[in-house]
């Protein structure tokens, strides 16, 4: 199994009416249950909008803070899940079930680096065959 981050991007300036917002929330709840039920849920958070973001950098020993996100763009990171999946196909299937992939938004799948693994390859298929 490998871990992937499901990064949810969307236009945060789109106002949703109450009915749609309620439906989206219900879909996210169902999605969380789906991940948990499949044993794929490894974590995740919803984020406040980029208007609340603070960008921090250290230069010459001084901490400099800037009001706003690191990158200004129309589509902003709105939240993320950490999921467990056997391979990219399985991860894509789970990502496609995320409500964030609909409603004009998109999710970005990023494999997580596994520092604990001794090596990047997996002898399981050979072991299984033997």
């Amino acid at each position, binding site marked *: 199994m*490998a871990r992937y981050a499901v990064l949810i991007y969307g236009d945060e300036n789109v106002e949703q009416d109450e009915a749609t917002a309620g439906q989206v929330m219900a879909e996210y709840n169902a999605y969380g249950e789906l991940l948990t039920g499949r044993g794929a849920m490894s974590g995740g958070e919803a984020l406040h909008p980029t208007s609340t973001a603070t960008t921090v950098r250290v230069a010459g020993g001084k901490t400099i803070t800037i009001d706003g996100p690191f990158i200004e763009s129309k589509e902003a990171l709105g939240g993320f899940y950490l999921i467990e999946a*056997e*391979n*990219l*196909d399985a*991860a*894509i299937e789970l990502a496609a079930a995320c409500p964030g992939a609909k409603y004009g938004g998109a999710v970005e*799948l990023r*494999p997580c680096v596994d520092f604990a693994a*001794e*090596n*990047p*390859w*997996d*002898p*399981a*298929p*050979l*072991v299984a*065959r*033997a």
Partner: protein
Amino acid sequence: MGSRPAGGAGLNGSAARAAVEHAHRTEWTRVLAGVASSLGGDLDLAEEATAEAFAAALEHWPTTGVPPNPGGWLVTTARRRAIDRLRRAAIHRRKVAELEAALDTASATADSPIPDERLELIFCCCHPALAVDAQVALTLRCVAGLGVAEIAHAFLVGEQTMAKRLVRAKRKVRDARVPLRVPDRDELPHRLPAVLAVVYLVFNEGYSASADAQLVRPDLCARAVDLGRMLVELLPNEPEVLGLLALLLLHESRRPARTAPDGSLVLLAEQDRTLWDHTLARQAGRLLNAAWRRPGCGRYVIEAAIAAVHASAASYADTDWTHIVRLYDLLWQVSPSPVVALNRAAAIGLGDGPAAGLAALNGLADDLADYQYFHSSRADLLHRLGRTDEARTAYQRALELAGNATERAFLAGRLASL
């Protein structure tokens, strides 16, 4: 290496070398696929280990004899070499032990047929999570077995650029865990088009080499046909797989007539049909017949059928244009695109006259404003209607848009003859 000599040690060196060369031609992809699969998709390591296994064969087979199952011997050897490499890296001790234990069991069957994992490899290389240029490069490297320099040359990029593209693609396969697996039945309709598109792209790059002075690069066409044949061998019941190979063979059958001795382009209308390779066309016909009866025919089967109608006409004038227009109508249903509409209009122009063709072209001008063949088709129809000034303007626009020297020379010739 754990193999037994098959023909005794009496084999001479050149026979053994020939056996290695034969295995390289016929087994390379199978061996790479087998090794990659057991390494969990590390294509880079699999590639190096495969190369070492063939080098080992060259070294050992002249003295030990050719093993009864060369492919099995090569896979086992390549897996051993992969372990050696990992052991040298020294940080993989525990995994190496596991792999070795597995291999001890596996090597007992080194003489039995190895499972064919080429299809898994193909679907991995043509995975939609990879950019199309990465899919093409990986397929040519890992499935067709072309060298980095050859691929770079074929796509007119520097060798370093191509090497980087391949490294990046292989890293993504490994790190994002693009799986070595054949999609399930219900996924296949979504995954197969990418595989077919890669093969067709390779063929087209060879057939109408853009931006290159040479019109056709037969080596690339041949590689695409090889890939098409491999797909037919592995997926013999998929109509679009049969259709793609039929289409490639029909294009190939016309190749000898498509360029004049001076290298200039000869249009279908003016080709010497006695130069066509009718053996290839007959092979394509058989594939097409097998595909046509099955559900799931798509753009490749229909395009092949259109090419087959041309192949069966004794001359351009004898072509059954009504049949061709009907096939384009069908093609429009499965794959509507302005280019399909353009070809349909051209066929109408030939069947029902230039005025009808020009009427069918109306409405495509916006979509195809920058498409060379729109303007050359239009120029041809205008010329036949005697509207020479408009024809000239249209040929000039086509000339501005033409990519390769051969096609530019052709259009310049048309312009001069007005």
